[in-house]
C-alpha cells in the first residue's frame, strides 16, 4: 500500500506536511533535511524540484529555487541523492515539480525513478487535470504514484468533485487566492471557504497549504481540514541556519506542540 494511503488511514487530523527545495540551502542537504523533518515530528515530506520559472510560487520559494539551481541541483542529481533514503526515512515522500523539467526527463522514466527510490506521490502544479487523465494517469497508476491536485477558493464545486473523484491521495487546498508565501493570517473569507469545502464530504483527505507558518496557523487550518502544508515559512527557517538539523527539529516541535 502506498505510504500516503497508510498515513491517512492511521491519522486523520493535524497531519503536517513540510515542503523544502532540493539543493537549498546547500546542494547536499536533501537527505539530512528529510531526516530532521522526520525527527521533528512531521508526517509528510514534500521535496521541491527546483525550476527556473516557478509561476505558482512566491518570492521565498522562488529564491530557494534559484539558489538550488545555482548550487547545481538537477533532477538527475536529486534521484542520485535519494537513492537509498528509504533505509532512514519511513514518512511518505511527495515530489513537487513543474511539468517542463519532468517532460525533459521523460514522464515514464520519471515515474520509474520515483518508484525505484521510494517516492510516493507527485504534485505538478502546472499539469492540468484533463492532460493528466488523457496522457499520464495510466502511467502513474502503473508505478503506484499518487497524484495530487490543488484547489483554490475560486475552484467550482463541480470541479472539486471531479478532482476528488479522479484522485486518491489528498487534496491540496490553497488557502487564499495566492501564490505561496503571500499571506500570513487566516481571514474570515478563508474560513468560509474551508467550511464550504469541509461540508462537501469529499472522499480524499484535505491539506491546507500556502500561508501556514506556526503553531497558531497550523492549528486553525487543522480545524477545517486533515492538516496543513508549511513551505515558505520552513524555507525561511532553514535559510541562514548553521545547525540545520537542530534548527529544523526545534521549529517543527514548536509547530506541532
Amino acid at each position, binding site marked *: 500500500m502506498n505510504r500516503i494511503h497508510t498515513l491517512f488511514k492511521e491519522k486523520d487530523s493535524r497531519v503536517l506536511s513540510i515542503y523544502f527545495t532540493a539543493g537549498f540551502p546547500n546542494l547536499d542537504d536533501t537527505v539530512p533535511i528529510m531526516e530532521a523533518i522526520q525527527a521533528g515530528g512531521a508526517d509528510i515530506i514534500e521535496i521541491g524540484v527546483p525550476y*527556473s520559472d516557478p509561476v*505558482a510560487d512566491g518570492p521565498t520559494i522562488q529564491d530557494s529555487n534559484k539558489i538550488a*539551481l545555482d548550487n547545481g541541483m538537477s533532477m538527475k542529481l536529486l534521484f542520485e541523492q535519494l537513492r537509498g533514503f528509504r533505509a532512514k526515512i519511513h514518512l511518505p515522500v511527495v515530489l513537487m515539480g513543474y511539468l517542463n523539467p519532468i517532460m525533459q*526527463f521523460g514522464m515514464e522514466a520519471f515515474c520509474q525513478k520515483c518508484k525505484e527510490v521510494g517516492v510516493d506521490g507527485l504534485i505538478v502544479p502546472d499539469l492540468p487535470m484533463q492532460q493528466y487523465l488523457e496522457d499520464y494517469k495510466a502511467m502513474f497508476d502503473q508505478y503506484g504514484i499518487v497524484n495530487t491536485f490543488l484547489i483554490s477558493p*475560486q475552484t467550482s464545486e463541480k470541479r472539486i468533485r471531479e478532482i476528488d473523484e479522479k484522485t486518491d491521495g489528498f487534496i491540496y487546498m490553497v488557502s487564499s487566492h495566492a501564490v505561496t508565501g503571500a499571506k500570513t493570517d487566516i481571514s474570515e473569507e478563508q474560513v468560509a471557504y474551508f467550511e464550504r469545502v469541509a461540508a462537501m464530504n469529499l472522499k480524499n483527505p484535505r491539506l491546507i497549504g500556502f500561508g501556514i507558518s506556526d503553531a497558531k496557523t497550523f492549528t486553525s487550518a487543522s480545524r477545517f481540514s486533515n492538516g496543513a502544508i508549511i513551505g515558505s515559512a520552513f524555507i525561511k527557517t532553514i535559510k541562514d541556519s548553521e545547525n540545520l538539523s537542530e534548527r529544523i527539529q526545534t521549529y517543527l516541535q514548536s509547530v506541532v506542540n
Partner: protein
Amino acid sequence: MIGVDEKGFYGKFGGAYIPEMLYPNVEELKENYESILASKEFQDEFRGLLKDYVGRPTPLYFASRLSEKYRAKIYLKREDLCHTGAHKVNNTIGQIILAKKLGKKRIIAETGAGQHGVATATVCALMGMECTVYMGEIDIARQRPNVERMKILGATVVPAVSGSKTLKDATNEAMRAWINNPVDTHYIIGSVVGPHPYPEMVARFQSVISEEIKWQLKEKEGRENPDIVIACVGGGSNAAGAFYHYYNTPEVRLVAAEAAGLGVSSGKSAATTALGSPGILHGSKTILMQTEDGQVVEPHSISAGLDYPGIGPVHAHLFDVGRGEFVAVEDKDAMASGIELSKLEGIIPAIESAHALYALNMIEYSKDDVIVVNLSGRGDKDLETYIKWGNY
C-alpha cells in the same frame, strides 16, 4: 489545415498548462471570448477604435528604392504608423473591450521592450481602467522612455526582480499577480503565447493585418496573395497577424525572422527554433530554449521585443510541419537593415522589424515576386540603441 482545435492545440503545440488557481480565470475567458468577439456590439466598437483611434487601415506601401535594391516587388505593411508606434495596440484594443464585457475592473500586463506595456497603458487610459504593468528590472533600465510613457499614461510599473529580470520573468510576475487577483482582474498578454485561448485570441485581434493586406494588395497588384510574407517573431503576434489569412494558402510563403543575437551558436541568442526543443513555457506546449534539464535559458537579442526564450504555439506548429520558413538574424545584420531602410525609404524601423527586413538577404526569391514585409513598429523607442550602435 493550420488552426486551433477545440482543445486549444495547433498540432502538437498549445494547450493550457496552468496552475489550478488560474483555471477559473482562463476557463471564463475560454467560455466567453468567441461569443463576445462574434457579437456585433464588440465588432462595432473594435472596428471603430481601430479606425479612429489606432489609425487603421495602415498603408501597404510599395517601397520602390528597397525593391530596386533587392530586385523584387517589396511592400511594407506599415504597422509602425499605428498609434503608439507598433502593432501591439491592435491586441490591447481588442482585449480591453473584452475585459470590459467580462466586467473586469483592473488590467495587468507584462512587457519587454515596453511597447506592449505602452499599448496597454494607452487603452487603459482610454477606458478609464486601472493598469499595472510588470517589467523586468533590466528592461526598465534599458527602455527608460517607454517606462516614463507608461507612467504619464497613468499606469503603475512594477519591476520584476526574479530570475533574469527580463520579459520571461515579467510574464511570470504577471501570472502570479493574476493568481493573487483572480476575480476583478484581466491579464492582457502581449503576444500569441500563454495558455489557450490567449494565442488564438491575440492572433484574431492581430489578423486585421493580413485582412488588410489582402484587399490592399488586390487594389495594387490585382491579386490578394503575395508570394512571400515576412515578419519578425518574438512571441509571434505581428507574424501571426500577418500570416493569419494565409495560413492555409500554401502558395504564399511565410517567413519568420527570429533573433540570432550575437550568432546562433554564440550562447547569446534568441533563435528559438534553431536552438530550442519542445516543452512547456508560460502555460503552453511550444518550442523553447532550455537546458537538458528543462530549465529555461535566458535569451539575448539587441531588440528587447525579440528577447524571449519561446515562440507562440502556432509558430511551433508552422515550424514543425514545415509551413513556415524560419531564419535567424544577428544583431549586427538587423542593425544594418534598420539603417538601410532609413536611408532608402525615409523610415526608421523598430529593431524588431529590422530583423524581418534582413531576412530579404537570407531567402531565395525571383525578381517578379511580390513580397510583403510586416513593418511591426517604428524606431523611435530604439533611438538610443541606434545611437550607441553608430555606423550610420
